[in-house]
């Protein structure tokens, strides 16, 4: 039992190093960038004294290295500071944004993997014209930019159909709603951003699953399974799909950063109150505390997702388990 624990510890350490690297790089880039949050804070025609006073109050007049160490210490201790642009505590801002993004990404991950696996399995097992038609569909879905697909869905379902809302995560009257009407309001607001991310996700997953299935179908053990008289359905279910899904789990981990990136654009289109929108706004306003905390949190989430995918993979595929010494 020593080897798995040591392996997990090594992976966790590597993950921590990545998060630390991301945070450090972000800090350097932010401070290299022209402009600072003070310029927006002090109004249109500040005197040099006002600028200097504001910078001093925020600690921006200290050496960059000192600012970095101070930020790292405070962040690790749980003091994430206040947003320069809005004055709100960063923890409160992210406390609203993180669940919103996780809801969107989590649901779209679930739906696009379920549907994508079904489509890919059908393509590989049925073949022929069905496969061709579905291949054309999935390659097109895969090529759709999220922000554009989002706009097209808004055009169809909001402006023409007048069925679904296009902006935000809740209606203006959400605070007055309760019970079912609140759930319906949430779901109606979720529908278009979720559909955008999921449609694109299905394209990618189905393409990958189809490939993985075809690879397994060519293996000798599949021929053996057929030869010993198993029904095609049993061969598919027991031998092909199980083996084909192993690389799909790796994909799950790998696609997390991509999905997060996609969410940045989709959130921008739908005004979804998540991490992506928060990050875009904060970078543009040079809101240092928000950018730093949002980057640290998103990098941590991505790293954690990869660790979970790794662990699932080892659990699914005994061949990947570390061998015991001397065995």
């Amino acid at each position, binding site marked *: 039992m020593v080897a798995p624990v040591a392996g997990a510890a090594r992976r966790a350490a590597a993950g921590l*190093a*990545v998060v630390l*690297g*991301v945070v450090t*790089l*972000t800090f350097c*880039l*932010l401070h*290299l*960038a*022209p402009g600072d949050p003070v310029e927006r804070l002090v109004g249109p025609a500040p005197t040099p004294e006002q600028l200097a006073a504001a910078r001093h109050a925020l600690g921006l007049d200290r050496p960059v290295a000192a600012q970095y160490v101070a930020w790292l210490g405070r962040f690790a201790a749980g003091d994430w500071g206040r947003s320069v642009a809005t004055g709100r505590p960063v923890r409160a801002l992210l406390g609203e944004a993180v669940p919103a993004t996780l809801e969107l990404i989590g649901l779209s991950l679930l739906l696009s993997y379920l549907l994508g696996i079904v489509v890919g399995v059908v393509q590989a097992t049925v073949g022929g014209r069905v496969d061709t038609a579905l291949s054309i569909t999935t*390659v*097109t879905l*895969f*090529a*759709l*930019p*999220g*922000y*554009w697909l989002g*706009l*097209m869905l*808004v*055009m169809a379902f909001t*402006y023409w159909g007048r069925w679904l809302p296009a902006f935000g995560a809740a209606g203006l009257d959400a605070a007055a709603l309760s019970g079912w009407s609140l759930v319906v309001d949430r779901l109606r607001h979720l529908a278009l951003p979720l559909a955008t991310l999921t449609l*694109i996700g299905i394209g*990618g*997953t189905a*393409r*990958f699953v*189809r*490939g*993985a299935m*075809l*690879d397994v179908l060519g293996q000798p053990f599949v021929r053996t399974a057929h030869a010993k008289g198993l029904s095609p359905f049993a061969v598919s279910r027991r031998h092909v799909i199980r083996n084909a899904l192993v690389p799909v789990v790796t*994909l799950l981990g*790998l*696609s997390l*950063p*991509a999905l*997060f*990136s*996609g969410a*940045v*654009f989709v959130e*921008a*289109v739908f005004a979804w109150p998540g991490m*992506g929108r928060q*990050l*875009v706004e904060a*970078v*543009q306003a*040079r809101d240092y505390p928000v*950018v730093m905390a949002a*980057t640290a949190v*998103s*990098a941590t989430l*991505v*790293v954690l997702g*990869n660790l979970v995918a790794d662990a699932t993979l080892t659990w699914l595929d005994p061949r990947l388990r570390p061998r015991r010494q001397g065995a």
Partner: protein
Amino acid sequence: MSRLLRDRRAVWGASVLALVVLTAVAAPVISGGAPTAQHDIVATRFLAPLATDAHGVFHPLGTDRFGRDVWARLVYGARISLGVGSLAVLLSIVLGVAVGAVAGMWGGPVRGVLLGLTDFALALPRVVLLLLLAALWRPSAALVVVVLGLTGWMSIARLVHGEVRALGVRPFVEGALALGVGRGRILWRHILPNALTPVIIAGALGVGNAIMLEAGLSFLGLGVQPPTPSWGNMIASGRDTLVNAPWVATAPGVALVLVVVACTLLGDAVRDALEPTMRSRAPAARPL
């Protein structure tokens, strides 16, 4: 090559790309006017596709809110989008091949450092990096090329590293080493030419991604700046007029999807033709 010609995906993808490249090159001839040309704005804005305006000018794809011809902007935008996309991929290939080849050929601590760097860069959320880098300087097409190139070389470095290591133990390399040929020369003359296949495939797929990311950055206002047309900033400007002039955002999006599909199909077909053993493995991580 003959296998490629028999592959419908390759034929279709290559034809679409050739058509778009030709359109971009011939932009001044076929656009029917400058992409920034404006006449009487109030009279010529928001004209529907296939309309002829009061000056007798035909607008095949209509006009935008400043009365500019959408077709002309689309064709000139193709120059920016294709140019930025291919230059960015070229930059990632140069960086990726350099890192991957050195790591694969020299080994030891050099390999450790370079592979660690690659893994680290792969783990960075690309869009966060893009946002930060794009905010560093005034947005421009050149900046987008550099930013996309700097954030896109990692998968190529890994591919090349794997190929170089696999080729490095082959007899012809051992033979060259035994003859006293330097490692740099072996790499350049014997290994790299043999390792280029996956790089070409990754490049073809990468151009589609890069075009999509360029459009995404321009959409967020961090890429190519109006009035210079790019497909991304056209979609962004069409967003505000989605209700009364949906064609402004639709046209560049359709063009973008066509080009990305063409790149993907061509990449798939080239891979299948060159490496039958890698058949059907589609990359599923995408930028946005």
